[in-house]
């Protein structure tokens, strides 16, 4: 049993945090959850990827042959925690954590050659075309078709909730290549294609939290060469499930949450400096203490997954456990913060009197999101099936 970090790991954390303290562009809001609905902000986020790449930290865990840093999972997790703590906005999350790893594992030599280096250098942004109007949690029900026409596929249909699509260079796209397949999980394939391929129309969907817009995508006779498929024709479901499991433990969430909690406590201390403040209330303190318990258990369970990976054990349901707990925590702490700050807590960014430039309100607004990366219910299903050995209740 060892809950500690080695001196080398502590040194590494310090190197990362001192770099971020000195080099992170000031326009990045500390601890914001999902970037900002703002072209200039995203452009800055993109530029910062290249700085991280120059440090070898953008795709820190990738093998060196693909331009990665070859880091251990513990080092990657430390890096992610610090990037989250200092509010480095997500830019090419899909390329780094979903499309890239899938290409590495399932791609042809040509695909690896073509796609991996630019991701590693921070030159490109990917988006993920999975959800459709009638295929959300029930992802295998996607209807978008990609039908063979000689050496090409012709793609038709609609995607929705595609984050960053308007800024992306490439899309990692799930479509149905065999509509006659007997079961819905069959006949799916995964495509890699440029977003400027003719026939793609993007319509942004802005949200009330002012984070990166999701988008609706319309594909009208979009023609792609047959080598756009990754992992083989008809293997799309295997890739979709493999890539979703890459996604679920993200230590940058921990860093961001810690930062916000510290900012909140700091504000409480300042409010108490001139008389009675929130920390003088036993009720508030008890709620803060409960948040400490929830936060620390969430963080430890995330680190336990890292520890498993570090000793070569492949987590199955454990990331879903951290995901469920994390979403609950963020909701509870956001409510605490806004309750304590009262009317000040609901002032938007840019408003006079808004504490911490509206970031705490942002956390509250964003906390309604218990659906990203799979709803809490889908995650609980994963835990029940894979972790507790309970039978599937869904019709498949």
């Amino acid at each position, binding site marked *: 049993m060892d*809950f500690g970090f080695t001196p080398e790991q502590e040194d590494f954390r310090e190197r990362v945090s001192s770099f971020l303290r000195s080099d992170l562009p000031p326009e990045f809001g500390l601890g914001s959850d999902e970037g900002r609905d703002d072209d200039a902000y995203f452009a800055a986020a993109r530029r910062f990827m290249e700085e991280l790449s120059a440090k070898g930290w953008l795709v820190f865990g990738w093998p060196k042959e693909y331009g990665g840093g070859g880091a251990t999972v513990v080092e990657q997790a430390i890096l992610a925690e610090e990037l989250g703590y200092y509010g480095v906005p997500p830019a090419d999350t899909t390329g780094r954590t979903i499309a890239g790893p899938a290409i590495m594992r399932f791609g042809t030599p040509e695909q690896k050659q073509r796609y991996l280096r630019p991701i590693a250098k921070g030159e490109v942004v990917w988006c993920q075309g999975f959800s459709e109007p009638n295929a959300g949690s029930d992802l295998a029900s996607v209807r978008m078709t990609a039908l063979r026409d000689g050496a090409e596929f012709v793609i038709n249909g609609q995607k929705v909730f595609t984050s960053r699509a308007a800024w992306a260079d490439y899309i990692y796209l799930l479509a149905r290549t065999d509509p006659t397949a007997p079961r819905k999980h069959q006949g799916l394939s995964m495509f890699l294609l440029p977003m400027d391929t003719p026939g793609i129309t993007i319509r942004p969907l802005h949200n009330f939290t002012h984070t990166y817009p999701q988008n609706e995508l319309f594909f009208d006779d979009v023609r792609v060469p047959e080598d756009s498929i990754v992992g083989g024709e008809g293997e799309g479901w295997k890739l979709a499930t493999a890539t979703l499991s890459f996604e679920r433990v993200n230590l940058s969430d921990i860093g961001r949450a810690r930062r916000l909690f510290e900012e909140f406590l700091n504000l409480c201390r300042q409010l108490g400096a001139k008389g009675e403040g929130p920390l003088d209330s036993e009720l508030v303190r008890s709620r803060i203490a409960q948040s400490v318990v929830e936060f620390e*258990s969430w963080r430890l369970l995330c680190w336990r997954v890292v520890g498993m990976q570090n000793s070569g054990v492949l987590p199955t349901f454990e990331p879903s456990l951290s995901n469920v707990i994390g979403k609950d925590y963020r909701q509870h702490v956001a409510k605490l913060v806004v309750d304590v700050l009262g009317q000040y807590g609901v002032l938007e960014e840019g408003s006079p009197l808004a504490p911490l430039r509206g970031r705490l309100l942002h956390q509250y607004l964003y906390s309604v999101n218990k659906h990203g990366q799979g709803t809490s219910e889908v995650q609980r299903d994963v835990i029940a099936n894979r972790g507790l050995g*309970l039978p599937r209740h869904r019709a498949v």
Partner: protein
Amino acid sequence: MDFDLSPVQRMLRDNARAHLENICPPGHVRAMETEPAGYSRDMLTGLGERGWLGITAGTDVGGIGLGPIELSVLAQEIGRALLPGPVLSTAVTGTLIAAALPDVSDLLRDIVAGRVLVADALFDSADARASDVGTRATPTDGGYRLLGEKRFVQYGRSANLLAVLATRPTALDTPDSGLSVHLVSTDAPGIRTTELTSAGGEPLYQVVLDNVEVDAGDSIAPGPDTDELIRRITELSRLTTAAQLVGMSRKLFDMCLAHAKARRQFGRAIGTFQVIQHQLVDLYAEVERAQVLLDRAAWLMAEDKDHERELAVARSAASDTSYLASHTAGHIYGGYGFMNINDVQLYYRRSKVLELRFGNADACRAEIAKLGYLSAFELPDSDQRTVPDLSMFGSV
């Protein structure tokens, strides 16, 4: 970064579990509820022979000399089996006090061997606050005369010795707390016990100390070392309390899961229903959180690192988890969970009693929210981005 037990610690856990399943099935727990002593002395002497009562005592007095992690592992199994008897009070309070007495060895050997069992009558009530000790120790020629009352003493008649804290008759201007520690025979003249009937089923007493004479040789005078001893007893007792609660909670979870797989309604196992699955997942998540917080606290104690805050976090989570576990079990078992013939009720009753000993969840939260402990969540001083945001204090 490895949150697992070592192979030796796992062996300790597995052996303890197997032994307790053998000697202490639920039928034994039920039988002891109607025994005046409340436990089997032969069984506890047997555990002494196996080294359990000396798990942390030195090998020179017959102990095993293990640390807080192993103590926690053993306490989890004792909780899981609901083992009746003053086992942990003997193993923790008894051995620590005996080792600090002026003349150590004989009594300590008897305690470690299970020949002398010690009941915990330290604090005047179950809240474990040193400031609440009103029992007085007046110095006499050969020792002290004790006058006061201890409430909620488990096994206060059927153990051999009572471990008692008392205070000076008049406060002196000394840096220590003035508390002295005494081991008093349960049948010493001047001891009057009144049996209380508690939901837990363990024999519980109000113990009046009416001018009880105790030898200097069985007493530890006030002083800084004595305060340190009391602090150590208290923190290890909090650890074993949390550990027993986690052990009980995990057992309840295991029972619920097995029941959900076996119990059939509407032609199928109730564990196929999503609403049952998600209750089980939520309980599982809470047990895992309590476990990882407990393990961290035990590890910090074993490594001699700061741990007071983390112990309060673990203790608080253990209480809340055992509450959730016993209520979820009572619900998933339905009408059967309500019946005496079912084991759920044993855990339901006993965990509630234990949950309120050595500081309940609210008391722990109050401790976690101490300003000094909240400094675990301080923004880094060197962070230039931390601009004090005091716009709330004035108009713009």
